[in-house]
């Protein structure tokens, strides 16, 4: 009986211990953010899909500390308006590294590449060789866009059991070939990520590292 009791306790303890170390996989998330520069407003919407999660377990005096290194692919649609200069629509694919702490905070780094289309911020005219002036509708340019972003956020599912994350992410977007060179624009995103369990379920590759 005593042996059975010890075995039972051992099993329970083992399950708890295993539960502590179990990987809580991130899901596919829908993102929506205010994205702007200074006083010029914009937005960014998109989807993030994890493809790899590395669970790093560190033994501490108080127990095991778990940090998730999550890797995502994201696809985003963005827009901002800078009156008298241009408005800008873009489609951006990003590779996202996120370091998720067990208490909910996360940090991320996100390089991206995409397609950009600007629309000039005023009526645009062209003049032909005969000197005839005409107005051009939807004048603007197509560019390749690169972006580099890094930010901080909080995963509310860790405390409130809500599949919502909030984040703040400054970024630098670069358009090229812009006047045969580059155009760089610092921006900042303030957004939320909603990742309900029923939505477009993902099965990222999981790896566990113990330190």
């Amino acid at each position, binding site marked *: 009986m005593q042996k059975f009791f010890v075995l039972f306790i051992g099993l329970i303890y083992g399950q708890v211990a295993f539960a502590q170390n179990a990987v809580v996989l991130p899901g596919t998330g829908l993102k929506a953010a205010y994205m702007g520069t200074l006083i010029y407003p*914009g937005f960014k919407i998109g989807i993030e899909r994890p493809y790899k999660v590395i669970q790093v377990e560190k033994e501490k005096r108080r127990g095991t500390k778990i940090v998730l290194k999550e890797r995502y692919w994201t696809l985003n649609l963005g827009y901002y*308006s800078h*009156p008298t200069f241009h408005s800008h629509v873009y489609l951006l694919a990003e590779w996202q590294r996120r370091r998720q702490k067990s208490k909910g905070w996360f940090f991320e780094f996100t390089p991206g590449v995409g397609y950009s289309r600007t629309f000039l911020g*005023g009526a*645009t005219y062209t003049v032909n060789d005969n000197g005839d002036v005409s107005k051009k509708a939807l004048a603007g340019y197509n560019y390749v866009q690169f972006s580099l972003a890094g930010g901080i956020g909080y995963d509310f599912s860790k405390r409130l059991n809500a599949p919502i994350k909030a984040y703040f992410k400054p970024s630098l977007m670069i358009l090229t070939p*812009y*006047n*045969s060179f580059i155009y*760089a624009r610092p921006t900042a995103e303030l957004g939320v990520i909603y990742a309900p369990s029923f939505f477009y379920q993902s099965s990222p590759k999981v790896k566990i590292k113990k330190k």
Partner: protein
Amino acid sequence: MHRFILGFLMIFFFSNCQKENNDLVANANETIYVESDNAAMRVNIRGNIASKVVLLVVHGGPAGAGYFYRTDASVAKLEKKYAAAYWDQRVAGASQGGSNSATVVMEQYGKDLKKVIQVLKHKYGQDLKVFLMGQSWGGMVCSQFMTEGNNQDMVVGWIHANAVHNWKQNDVFSRNKLLTFGQQQIALGKNVEKWTEITDYCTANAGDITPEISAQLNAFSFDALNMIDGFTPFNEDEVIRENLISEKIPYTNAFLNLVNPATGRLISSLNSVEFSSKLFKVTKPVLALSGGYDFVVPEEGAIDFIDKVGSAKKSRKLFPNSGHNLEEQDAYIDAFVQFIDDNI
């Protein structure tokens, strides 16, 4: 819910679509773009366009910006009476474009200026009276335009303010002025170390002027402006700071245009560009202005300009307490307005 989202998106997408106004009003504030050979050049029309008279500002640089010229004096004096069109040239200011480095050449700037005038006349009427005001590098652009075909028939008059029309000749004038003024300052014991560096450089490079020497002389000329007792050079950064929000200045755009490699290549190519030999073609009224402390474009350039133009109506004025960037703003703007008054 989906209506709300659609409405939200519509507000965002169309918040940038400004209604164009071609009305002849006394307080115009219109921004248009003129597209030319893969560059979209911003033109901001301000002030009293009801007068049907516009001063087209051709900025310096290359790769300066029209923003720098809309000063308090310009708003209070020029724009009250006439309109001003602040044009950002290709690869300058708020201008945008694609792969256009091959078009960043002297001839193209004359073509672009012609298109800007054609668009202004299309917008406000063929009877719109256009005056040109080219400052510094803007003098080269105006010279290119005014000496080409019948272009000058499109304008009423031309102000050449602290402006260049002969790149290499100007470098020689600049070197001479730095040397003469520097020697005087050394004799007076003022900023001896820096002036010695400048005068030694001028003496050591007394021969032919290469693009590298030209660039160094230009840098020394701006250094010199900061070494004159009681003189404060025009602060372009301050203009940007004060107007960043109100004028919606795309700061990084203007900065990256300034450091665009195409601009550097253009400057290097200007060593062989001169209009002294072509200015005889110009018959429209001209006014040449100079700053007494202008080492970048010394007064001798304005003397050569007035000597060479074929205009019957031509005059010249020196502002003794100005440097390169029209520091005596009220006096310069008064001179602009007076020139327009006299030739309208």
